[in-house]
């Protein structure tokens, strides 16, 4: 995702914002800086990129605290993410055996109306431990419907 943001920045590394474009992209992703803080991007020549960047950052608003950004249009509800999820596997015997979790089970992910949804993001290993410890749902998603940011 940082790469996608970086593609929309001027890429001049002019340091007018006080840092390189790559660092600025990382701060945009985390939400600590806004595109208005890049003086070069405000020039007319970069109007298209400014719009594209705004759309990109708008789409990121849907991401969860755990970093999950789910594209429901790509998901076909195969349920692979449920069964590879470290929390689901450790705490829900149904998920371990391949069945979908029962309605009372405490799980991170569920399939609702044929699409994956975050049932309880606070249980996600990424919030309990370091965020880079687990990315199994993203890694195993065959349709790339789950992106972790």
């Amino acid at each position: 995702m940082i790469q996608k943001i970086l593609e929309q920045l001027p890429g001049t590394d002019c340091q007018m914002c006080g840092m390189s474009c790559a660092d600025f992209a990382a701060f945009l992703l985390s939400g600590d800086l806004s595109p208005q803080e890049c003086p070069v991007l405000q020039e007319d020549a970069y109007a298209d990129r400014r719009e594209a960047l705004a759309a990109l950052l708008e789409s990121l608003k849907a991401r969860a605290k755990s970093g999950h950004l789910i594209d429901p249009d790509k998901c076909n509800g195969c349920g692979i993410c449920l069964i590879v999820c470290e929390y689901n596997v450790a705490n829900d015997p149904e998920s371990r055996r391949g069945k979908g979790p029962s309605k009372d089970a405490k799980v991170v992910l569920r399939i609702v109306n044929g699409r994956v949804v975050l049932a309880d993001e606070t249980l996600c290993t990424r919030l309990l431990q370091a965020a880079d410890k687990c990315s199994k749902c993203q890694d195993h998603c065959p349709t790339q419907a789950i992106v972790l940011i």
Partner: protein
Amino acid sequence: MTHKTVTSLVCCGCSCLCDDIDAVIDEDRVVETANACRWGAARFLGLKKFSSGLPRARCRSSRRCLHDKQWKDLPLGEAISLCRDHLFFARRVVAYGLGQMSSEALWILMQGLRDWETLWIPSDGPMLEAFVEAYKRQAPALTHLECVRNQADLVVFWGANPLRSTPRLLSRYGLFPRGRFTERGAEDRKAWTVDIQATEMGRVTELATIPSDHEKACVEALRRAHAGGPMEVPAGLSAKPWATLLKDVEKSRYRVFFFGRGPLYHEHGPAVLEELALWVSELRASAPTFLVPILCDFNSMGFLQIFLSCGGSANPKWRLQGDLRRWEPRPGDVLLALSGDCFWFLTEDQKNAVRQHHIPVLALSAYETTTTAHADVVLAVGLQGLDVSGQAARLDGMTLFAEKLWADAAASDEAVIRKLFDPHAEIGNPCAPRP
């Protein structure tokens, strides 16, 4: 107003027949599903399978087409009687669809047509025809999906993309679940996909791509190499992935080959299945090895079971045909479109021949389709697992019972077929009694 949650429903969305679906029902409508894949959820929610969010039109009333192309609604009994009249004059019955009917209805249908000249064209026809032919020669063994989950340490998807046909097969049984002897799930299994193009399966299994005209040669090469000969793949292909696949096959202790319909889109597809079935039977000498077809319609395997158990392959008056486009309409034919949209697949020439020979089109359907729009008589039935109950066989042959969700006035396909052949007689169904 009723609002309830029902659990452990059987989904008739595909041949996986998932039995862990939860649904929230508001009056006589499912408003939310849990654990169902996109295809299954679309069926429960009354939406189109491939166009998310668009409602799918249901066939609500039985009717006949008048001479001026106007429709006239009829009571079900009268519509069945009309169909019976058409069948009375039939010299040959062409039964299309069949994979989306209950096992009970299929059983009664085959009993009823036992002495009739019948051309059976199931909607999963190419796969079923090729599999029956392979079964006659090699008798490749099937295994239960639960055994796959518990024991399989090698799964090969040949010409199959279950993510598009049976989306939950990988997570429920085929690749990821933890079983008795596969406690680490996917880590305890080697998984391969062999396909003519790169697919999403490449993200979850090893992928070997292959030109479609070389598939049979590759299976032959694998067979020869397994027998101790050199690995000689067709020119232009790298031998490395095939050598790795063979190594995985030889190391494994329980192997399952899932065969998809991909190769059957080409004329040499049946030969690929034949060769694979032969190799599977040879592999069984060293370890349990199975060949499982991935069928799309939820009861295609039920059709195959009942067809074979009725002596269908030996009945001189019956013929199983895979491809609808090989049907040559002739005077005296009656087209029975049974829960399948055959007019969607017919060529213009076939459609013209149907009109020219005045072939009656009798459609039994839960949905409005191209076929119901062209039919002379339409019999409206309920959807299995929602409006009506019925049995179906999963892709491995395991029979499941899909129970209805509400007390709907819709007729079941079983009741309609039963009345079609004899409104008075009781035709037994030895498949299994209803619970």
